[in-house]
């Protein structure tokens, strides 16, 4: 095991796959010479050279379009969109073109590409640089959606995403970039579509994603220590494909389900999971399904204001306590 930051794990994952397959190429703004504005791709230009690691103009449609065209003609591109909020400027390429073209062409075209981006809040960047937009992607058929919570998963799931024959939206949580974690040495690939039970428990299942996983774990500790409530925490990791099995099994055991979402309230993955549980596990439930989310409000930038809106361990504890009481 090596100790790597979440940030370093990104570069490791890309490098591992680029060494393995010369068809893997990488493009984005300030990614080559500068090593990325979040310094996730430092050293790649030096190792793989300017034909494979390419700086682009500020032209997100061109970036994503180029990735699409390259992927359907034999390459496996990785494209970086600096902040996930910027997917809005190239959403047509993502949601209407990449996502639909395999199906529309009766399976003629494949799009083995990865669209990476820094996602999420907590960094005081304000409403246009802090969004959690994984649900935008989840709502569009044809996209796989991954959002790791720790360095090992970053490396393993990124590697799997690059190998995957389908388009993968890979959301890195920017507030986690500096966090260190154990990462297996040598080749590391973690299959997509497998949720991870990161803490076992018996009274309630908490489903969380990315930066909400450490918060859910913190809440679970407090619930155990201060309230004697045993919470199981599931790191959902992939929204598509979605490991409903692990989640349903867990909820069937605990009888209670709480989701913790960083995204604004409406139409989040938590609502989707809640609806699945409410449909398929209704008779096993011992109480309402509760969703803890950022309210349906853009994120403000001042520390106190941003903290007031994002789900905190305290708010998770409150919600769970309320549910089990």
């Amino acid at each position, binding site marked *: 095991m090596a100790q790597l930051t979440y940030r370093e794990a990104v570069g490791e994952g890309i490098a591992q796959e680029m060494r393995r397959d010369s068809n893997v190429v990488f493009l984005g703004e300030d990614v080559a010479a500068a090593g990325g504005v979040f310094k996730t791709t430092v050293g790649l230009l030096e190792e793989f050279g300017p034909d494979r690691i390419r700086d682009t103009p500020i*032209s997100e*449609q061109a970036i*994503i*379009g180029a990735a699409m*065209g390259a992927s359907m*003609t034999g390459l496996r591109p990785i494209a970086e969109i600096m902040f996930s909020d910027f997917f809005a400027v190239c959403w047509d*390429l993502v949601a209407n073109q990449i996502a639909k073209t395999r199906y529309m062409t009766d399976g003629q*075209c494949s799009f083995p590409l990865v669209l990476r981006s820094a996602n999420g809040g907590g960094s005081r960047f304000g409403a246009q640089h802090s969004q959690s937009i994984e649900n935008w992607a989840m709502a569009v058929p044809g996209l796989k959606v991954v959002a790791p919570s720790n360095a090992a998963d970053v490396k393993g799931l990124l590697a799997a995403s690059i190998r995957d024959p389908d388009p993968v939206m890979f959301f890195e949580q920017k507030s986690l970039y500096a966090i260190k974690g154990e990462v297996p040495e040598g080749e590391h690939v973690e299959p997509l579509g497998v949720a991870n039970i990161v803490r076992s428990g018996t009274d309630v299942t908490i489903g969380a994603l990315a930066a909400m996983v450490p918060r859910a774990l913190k809440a679970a500790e407090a619930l155990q220590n201060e309230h004697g409530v045993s919470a199981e925490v599931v790191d959902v990791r992939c929204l598509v*494909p*979605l490991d409903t099995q692990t989640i349903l099994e867990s909820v069937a055991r605990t009888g209670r389900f709480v989701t913790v979402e960083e995204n604004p309230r409406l139409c989040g993955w938590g609502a989707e999971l809640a609806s699945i549980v409410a449909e398929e596990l209704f008779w096993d439930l011992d109480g309402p399904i509760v969703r803890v989310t950022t309210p349906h409000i853009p994120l403000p930038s001042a520390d106190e204001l941003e903290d007031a809106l994002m789900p905190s361990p305290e708010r998770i504890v409150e919600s769970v306590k309320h549910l089990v009481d």
Partner: protein
Amino acid sequence: MEETVTTSTDPSEGSGDIRYIDTEIRLKLYRTMYECRVLEQRAYDLFMQNLVKGTSHLALGQEAIAAGFGVAMRQDDYTFCTYRGHTHTYVRGVSMESILGELMGRECGLLRGKGGSMHLTSVEHGAMGSYAIIGAHLPVAAGAAWSAQYRGTGQVTVCFFGDGTTNIGAFHEALNFAVIWKLPVVFVCENNLYMEYTAIKDVTAVENPAADRAEAYGLEPILIDGNDVDVVYEAAGVALDKARKGGGPSLIEAKTYRHGGHSRADPGKYRPDEELQGWLARDPIPTYRERLISLGIEDESLEAIESETDAAIDAATEVARNSPPPPVDIAHIDVWADGSASWRN
């Protein structure tokens, strides 16, 4: 046999350099245009019989562009085109019945009814798709060109689009991107003077929406007569050659005109009758036929092409009409590369 062709930078005039085009090629150009014409005409007839649902956009009158490029391209080159892409797909070697079948939503259709008229694609023939949202395919074409450049295959990508497409952001991004990466791609603006029902001149800051912008990307302005298939063929050859040799992209604006409305529902009444008549008189197919005759080609050779094609379209129509609807199961497959559509376990 040496022949002369007239080209000009002002497409509405008709004189210019004299160049050589081989008779074999000329006959191929004529045949291709004629095939495109009957294909589109048949598509039209099938709408009228309500056998084509949804929408459909015909290139009647614009055949010289698809034909000129189709004949000039190498078989492994890529094309990207629009919803008005039946002919652009056809010229790459796709069969008439699979196109008509797709328009009619039949099992024999190129996409078995999953794409429809606006999305004809045949990867096998390098026809990398028909794109129905304005501008999207320009950056995608750049990406395919990047891939060819990276893989060192010498393949060139040709990307067709309309005049109206020059005002959307993706056009701008793709052109700049292709130039700075020196990509082997030829952007072809088919300027048929109209978007849907609005004239391009009413909403564009320059007269020639593509050519007058070429220099904004460091490119030479190229404005050609899109109704003269020889001119198109030659311009295509030059641009393909430049791209193949590593000289980077070109942007060609080909002036042309659609004979019908924008799409099936549109009678095209917004166009002045005089303008329409003027362009009908410059129909690329009869005018080319006249040129071929004047160059000494036998009427019989042309008639043979015509009757062969007429028979072929009838046969294709029969096949497509008799093809059953696609099996309903296929609606549920191929979202993912494993053939499934499932998003959960």
